[in-house]
């Protein structure tokens, strides 16, 4: 469905993506994990058309979309739920949701209301707060709103940038379950960028690990969960060799605990 070949993206002089090759099949939930600064958000931004790559190609449904801007890509069915949710805080939950359907307002004006009702049904917590400004919602509710806003675009591919950021584990679990459900029941292809390795790989079909702008490991979620290379990509060294960074008197291995 989405094929990425040798993608190179720069932020000014900074070479962030250094040749990404990736294929995402229809109806799949793919997790992209990696430590800070590995290029995860840039990859999603490039796929969504927010950043234009310098080299390489992005093929979506046999059509090249490499240099299409975000305004052209969203109507084609690729939608990004940006990092830190980016809720429109001064406008109501309803308007936030309707803004998600912005690009198809003229085309399918009639179906928007139905989609809106469907999305509201999908997130019962939002139903109680439709008239509340987005900024007054809790972190978890905001994330649900951000996903709902993304769904209003009726995407074939939904891309989420760190939806677990700053959320309690239980809420993260809820959000991940919602994503799995979207994938299974609605057939939406999902690309999930996460720091929370365990939470992401638990629900994903496949995953790949990004480090220094390159995909270093990829495979099924189960494979990745037990792959020592994944820990290496996260912490810079193999977990077996991991030592306590400071002499705190405790013998536990920090790296292992964190994962």
């Amino acid at each position: 469905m989405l094929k990425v070949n040798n993608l190179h993206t720069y932020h000014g002089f900074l070479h962030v993506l250094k040749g990404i090759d990736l294929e995402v099949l229809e109806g799949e939930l793919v997790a992209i994990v990696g430590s800070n600064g590995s290029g995860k958000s840039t990859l999603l931004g490039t796929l969504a058309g927010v950043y234009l790559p310098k080299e390489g190609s992005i093929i979506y449904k046999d059509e090249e979309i490499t240099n299409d801007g975000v305004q052209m890509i969203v109507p084609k069915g690729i939608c990004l739920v940006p990092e830190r949710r980016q809720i429109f805080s001064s406008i109501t939950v309803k308007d936030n949701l309707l803004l998600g359907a912005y690009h198809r307002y003229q085309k399918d004006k009639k179906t928007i209301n139905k989609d809106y009702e469907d999305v509201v049904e999908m997130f019962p917590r939002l139903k109680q707060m439709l008239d509340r400004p987005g900024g007054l919602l809790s972190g978890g509710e905001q994330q649900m709103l951000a996903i709902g806003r993304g769904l209003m675009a009726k995407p074939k591919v939904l891309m989420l940038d760190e939806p677990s950021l700053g959320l309690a584990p239980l809420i993260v679990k809820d959000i991940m379950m919602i994503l799995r459900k979207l994938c299974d029941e609605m057939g939406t292809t999902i690309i999930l960028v996460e720091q929370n390795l365990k939470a992401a790989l638990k629900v994903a079909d496949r995953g790949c690990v990004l480090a220094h702008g390159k995909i270093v490991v990829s495979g099924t979620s189960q494979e990745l969960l037990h792959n020592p290379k994944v820990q290496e990509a996260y912490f810079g060294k193999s977990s077996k060799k991991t030592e306590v960074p400071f002499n705190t008197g405790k013998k536990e291995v920090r790296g292992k605990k964190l994962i």
Partner: protein
Amino acid sequence: MEKKDLKKIYHNSPAGPIIFTVLLFLMPVFISSNYIFTIFIMIGFYALVCNGMTMLTGFAGQISLGQATFYGIGAYSSAIVTGTYGLSPWIGMIAGMILGALIALIVGIPTFRLKGHYLALATLGFGIIVYTSFKEMKDLTGGSNGFFGIPTINLFGFEFNNDLRYFYLVWVFVMIGLIFSRNIIHSRIGRALRSIEGSEVASDAVGVNIMNYKLQAFMLSAMFASLSGSLLAHYVTFINPELFGAMTSIYFLLMVIIGGSSSIWGSIVGAATYVLLGEILKQLVPMFLPSAGGEFEIMFFGILLVVTLIYMPNGLYPQFEKLFSKFKKKKEKVQPPLQVGGDRVASGGENQ
């Protein structure tokens, strides 16, 4: 959620605006003072400019420090078209609005390519250039001496040649402007504009063409300012560049902030506060400080701005709205519908 409830949320009761309009248009029945009419006419001029600026600042999140420039472009266009070429004032008005929009487009295109508040800097610089041009293009504008002999407006032979008639003319324009802006705000365009003000990253992600909308909002605000300038020129029949300097632009911004930029009704509140307080100050200050010059106004409004930003960061209008809601609540004993965009939410923390 019932559809009825949803409608209620998004379309506030029109009672307030209707009562205001009826009272305003009936005012001359009870008051026949030309001084009061003049004050209301001035409020109308400023409210028109602020209406456009509210769209730009409150909704698209852009700050212009050169709105007096467009006000001046409208005034001089009308003056030149009618005074020099003897054409109809309506042609002058339309020419001014088109010119204002075109200039906004030319200034806006390079400016909106940059992120951040570069529009404020660009418009400030541009304002100074135009102000100097008004002064130096003596053949066209009359230079510092000003432009004399601008005719009054007439519509099908009906001359708007006294304060009462002009009061109605100006306020009809203000009301049309408000209805126009209100319709924009409650449409898809309004939502898109608000989204830009909320988060550019997210509005980009949902496919909103940010640059286009910013440009359109800027052009619209320039057209409102230009229209107001044209009306001013035909009212005072004499204009000079001093009316359109950088200080006037700052006062416009001040009116928008004091009135409240989150609602278009804030433009009337801001303009009224500025004009009324200015008049009161002119009476009061000489009584207590006989040697004070005109600068006291700048000081006073500076302090007022700081106080407003500390205690009422959303401006005065939301306070009126709260009062009105309380009154309604008492009367109906029902929770009033929430005003969309009435209170801004504090930014920061987890909720961002």
